[in-house]
């Protein structure tokens, strides 16, 4: 069976500009998970993340003519997603949280969660529970918007400083400063809850 080579982002963009909606569908499939995950961490709940992801791709489809290809398609999509999330923050259109855990609940289980984390060598192997996830998300939500975005892009999405600077449209020095401040703030918050 002959394997069909995967088309590059640039090819998909060209096809999309030509009105090929299947190419756009491929873009959605290719970047949907990443965009949704990032928006989930930025916005704090799934429903908002889904809505924002939908809006992100709609905007991308309508603005594909303006995409000049100077940046990576992923960077452009992240930038749109960041703007969508920022607008949702500012117009207060975020929906109710779907988390139920509270910091108090989390604190009660903190020793067990910490032990679970300590028993592993790899961070990604931590069997993180729903309560811990909610606690971490709450800490993220309490970060200022700019710090949160830098932290999410770096730690969760694994972007480089350069990529973050492009997405956030700011100097790399600003990214570095924001990341340092975000980490120190989170460290303090997590230490207060005995999570680290």
């Amino acid at each position, binding site marked *: 069976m002959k394997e069909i080579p995967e088309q590059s982002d640039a090819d998909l963009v060209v096809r999309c500009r030509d009105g090929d909606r299947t190419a756009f*569908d491929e873009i*959605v*499939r290719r970047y*949907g*998970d990443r*965009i*949704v*995950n990032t928006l*989930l*961490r930025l916005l704090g709940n*799934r429903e908002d*993340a*889904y809505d924002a*992801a*939908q*809006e992100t*791709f*709609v905007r991308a*489809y*309508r603005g594909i003519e303006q995409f000049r290809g100077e940046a990576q398609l992923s960077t452009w999509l992240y930038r749109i997603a960041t703007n969508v999330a920022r607008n949702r923050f500012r117009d207060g259109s975020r929906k109710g949280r779907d988390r139920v855990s509270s910091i108090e609940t989390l604190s009660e289980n903190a020793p067990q969660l910490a032990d679970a*984390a300590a028993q592993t060598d790899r*961070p*990604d*192997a*931590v069997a*993180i529970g729903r309560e*811990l*996830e909610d606690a*971490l*998300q709450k800490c*993220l939500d309490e970060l200022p918007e700019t710090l949160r975005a830098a*932290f999410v892009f*770096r*730690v*969760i999405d694994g972007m*480089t*400083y350069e990529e973050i600077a492009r997405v956030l449209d700011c100097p790399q020095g600003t990214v*570095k*400063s924001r*990341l*340092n401040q975000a*980490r*120190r703030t*989170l*460290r303090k918050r*997590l*230490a207060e809850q005995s*999570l*680290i």
Partner: protein
Amino acid sequence: MSNRTQRERISAYLDGELPEDERIAFEKAMAEDAALQREVEDCRGVDALFWALPREDAPSDLLRRVHNALDDADERPEPIRFRRRLQPRAATPLLASAAVLLVVIGVVIYQFASQPDLARRDIAGLAEPERPMPDGYHEVQMMELREEAIAPLAASEPPAAEKAAEENAPERRAKDEAAADLSMQADALQAPAEAEPDAAPTEAERLVIRRRTTAPPASPAPAAAPAEPAPERAPEPPPEPEPVPAPEPANDMPAPQAMAYGEEDFRAEGADAAQQVSPEDLPPAPPGGAMGGFGGGGTGVPGGVPGAPGDMTGGMAGGMAGMSGMGGMPGSADEPMGRATAGITIGRESDDNAAGAPEAETDAPAPVAAPLRLLAGPRAFERVGDEWRQRGYAGEEAPSIARDSEAFAQLLERYPELHTLTLQPDAVVFAVDDGWRRLEPAPEPEQ
């Protein structure tokens, strides 16, 4: 390197963004500083916790939701955006209309601001529609305006005032005789060479330029307007004037009986109402002293002055000049200057309308080079280059008027710096560089 500087590099160190030399220096500092090392480990733990957060996959229906959103957007009419509506082509008429509206509003506000007394009158008129028109200067102005507007009707059919005047034929005849006398004097200006040296006073003797700096002396009433018994007033006071008395079609104007007011009233108050209006009687002068007196030197008159309009419709613009802000009156551009003769035409009609003069006869300080718009006279002219132009209402420029009369030429010859001139029924007020001057007929020598 200080601990603070090292702590600021924790993130860069964890992210592998430190240059090699800085990374080595940082690791060395971390080895020597347990607190720094602990902080680095804590931050690494923070990263580990958040990195370990479960990845959220896109919902299975994300693609369908995106398609639906796109399809819905295609079906919906595109919302009209403000920016689109303000594209240059579409916005130009809108902006132009707005600009015109603003200008009109500004002009109206300016007019009322410059004529607070008129504004008050109009406001008062709204509040008190039945308020009788008081005696005095402004009533005269308003009457003049009305008379000016009904001029076409007055010219086409005998006005009621004329009919009433016929009833007072003896008085009228006396006036006419006096007016004719003055007209003859004015006509003498046309041909000064024909004047006999020993004859009656020359034009220069009969017309004086008054430099009014103090209260005018009580002057005898001109022969043309002897004291008469109380006149018959119109049955009802004339209605309040319109705030913007631009020339309206004649058939929209009030009935001509209002014309009788000016003649009789002013004769009762003194034929030369200007001579008898005291400053206290006058309404507040508009800014710049439109109602104020006129400075000027008082020696002989060099010659004639342009004739005032020879009929009642010609010069009734006193109030308009000040109110319009530009001086002269509309509608008079097509009229000949007076009787197309030199000198002040003081005929019967002009005499009747002597009420147009009061604004020139006050004790207010003489304004110096007041702008044309402050003139209050039936006609105003201003020099535009080498040409004299008559100014219409609200600055509307009327066609240039041929100033070919001998009297006007003489006046310009004597006062080459003359730049503004207004004609009133019984006087000519003009401005030269050092102030305003008033030219009016000398009183009849006492018998």
